[in-house]
């Protein structure tokens, strides 16, 4: 009756061999292509460093002005602008300015990467049901897999540092933008699309003039979610060398510094709220002409 009490698993040796074989295969792959892959990501490294240098080297009043201006142009709402500036001021007062700037820079680059990679995938998905069927389960796995797991292959492949961190964050945060781009394009009014066809639009004109603009509010919702997920992942990515607000949190956990953890945690919440409000307000503004006023 042994097999009733313990689930009959594959023989331990076989299992060990299997895991070893996969790991070794992956290690061999890393040895063979690791350098090539690393140099492939060089431009990304450059982008990351430049962005971080800009955020940390620019005098704080200019950064405040810049963020305030972006918040204003996106939301046209002075309350949102004011709360963004107050949040930043508090962060500065509690001596978390540099780490916050590093995190914002990281989020910015991650979001840009997610958009650059995610929107074309979403567009491709919206055009082919077969591709949609193939990609959807992958996205499901990406969203439910514990985020730590991403760190392992990325670190094996690229080691510790900014770029592996970025890749881990993008993998974790990209699904919403892909999903909502696909959804937004699929929901575009068929009548309007037909009109675009009737006037002789090419596939590219149809995408550029009709599908993307009409899907934009939905895509914006995806971008908003992506930013939020990237923020959550940035803390975890600090374990593999991403600098910013995540590292003090990590230190706080290791040494049981409650207040340090709390302050940095609140700073993350603060910038999350800024990003969220600003991008949502922008999404809403995009919808201004969609609501039906007349029948």
């Amino acid at each position, binding site marked *: 009756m042994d097999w009733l009490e313990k689930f009959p698993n594959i023989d331990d040796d076989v299992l060990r061999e299997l895991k070893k074989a996969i790991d070794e295969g992956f290690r061999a792959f890393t040895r063979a292509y690791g350098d090539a892959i690393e140099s492939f990501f060089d431009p990304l490294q450059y982008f990351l460093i430049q962005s971080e240098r800009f955020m940390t080297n620019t005098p704080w009043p200019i950064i405040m002005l810049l963020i305030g201006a972006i918040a204003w142009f996106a939301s046209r709402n002075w309350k949102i602008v004011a709360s963004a500036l107050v949040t930043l001021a508090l962060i500065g007062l509690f001596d978390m300015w540099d780490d916050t700037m590093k995190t914002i820079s990281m989020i910015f680059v991650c979001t840009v990467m997610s958009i650059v990679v995610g929107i074309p995938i979403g567009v491709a998905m919206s055009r082919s049901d077969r591709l949609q069927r193939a990609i959807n389960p992958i996205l499901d796995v990406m969203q439910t897999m514990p985020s730590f797991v991403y760190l392992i292959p990325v670190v094996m492949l690229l080691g510790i540092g900014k770029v592996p961190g970025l890749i881990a964050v993008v993998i974790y945060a990209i699904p919403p933008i892909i999903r909502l781009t696909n959804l937004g394009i699929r929901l575009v009014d068929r*009548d*309007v699309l037909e*009109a675009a066809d*009737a006037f*002789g*639009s*090419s596939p590219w004109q149809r995408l550029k*003039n009709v599908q993307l603009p009409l899907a934009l509010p939905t895509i914006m919702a995806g971008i908003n979610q992506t930013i939020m997920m990237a923020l959550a992942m940035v803390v975890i990515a600090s374990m593999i060398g991403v600098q910013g607000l995540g590292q003090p949190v990590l230190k706080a956990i290791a040494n049981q510094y409650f207040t340090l953890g709390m302050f940095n945690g609140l700073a993350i919440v603060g910038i999350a709220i800024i990003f969220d409000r600003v991008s949502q307000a922008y999404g809403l503004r995009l919808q201004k*002409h*969609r609501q039906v006023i007349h029948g």
Partner: protein
Amino acid sequence: MADRLQHEQAQREAQRQAAHGVGIEIRGLYKLFGPNPSLHIDKARAGMSKTELNEKHGHVIGLRDINITMPAGCVQVVMGLSGSGKSTLIRHINRLIEPTAGQLLVGGTDVLAMNEADLRAFRRHRTAMVFQKFALLPHRNVLENTVYGLEIQGLPRARQVEAAMRWIERVGLKGFEDRYPNQLSGGMQQRVGLARALTNDAPILLMDEAFSALDPLIRIDMQSVLLDLQKEIKKTIVFITHDLDEALRLGDRIAILRDGEVIQQGTGQDIVLRPADDYITKFVKEVNRGRVIKVETIMEAAAGASPSRVTVLAGTLLEEAARRLTESGEQTLHVLDESGKVCGRVDMQRMVAAMVTPAGGH
């Protein structure tokens, strides 16, 4: 070089057609909806009924053996109840829907033989379309919507705006260029739809129930706008409607569609006076005949007589003739041909008899 030659040739062709108009010829057109239409087309040809084909083989007959010749510069109305296949038919003309079988010639060119690029050029330069639900781009204002056709043709911006502004003014939207579609009433939105189509300056205008979504008064207003415009633009207009009054008012020729088949075609007068079957008879019973029948249709021969006090030109509608007669207090009027000679005579009794629906007709 060859490209430029081709382009010039295309331009000359377009000019020639702009001068003489472009007719549309539909021959033996069939459309089956379903997973494998070509497999079942022979059954449809052999006359299998719509229900039988649907129940036994899971295919819907959209159109069956359509033959219509639409002369250049005329308003061709296609009329039928909802689900009769009107939208399917009009979408074949610019090939938004591919036929299962049949021929489609526009200005003598075989549209079904066109490849993707040709078809795009055809849609850009030879056709323009107005839609029942307007189908405006919600994120573009009136001007930006109106230039759409020219914009995708890649015309210089100044030319786009110039043409668009002319038509925006012509359809009565001057001053509304910066408004967005959702800030306009239905009637105004459809004016934008019309301006957008006219700005394309294509010889063919396709209008799928363009006025059906509008309130009755606005609809009549838009019909007048279209009739006025047509005097000036003389395009080949294909106008879809489910409303017989609208069909009779607008159509030089009318084709009546039922369950995907043309059951009668001809002028409005033909249809009102000689309905092909009970179905059409029922339709035309409620029609105001005075606005459809022309005096020469019911006149007695009176060639060469000297004109009486009341005369009307051939082509005058009974309602107008009756009004003139009533105002004059006379009992009889004479009908004149184009040269001004008397060609017939109509008296009051004859006129009233023609204007009321024949008793017992159903």
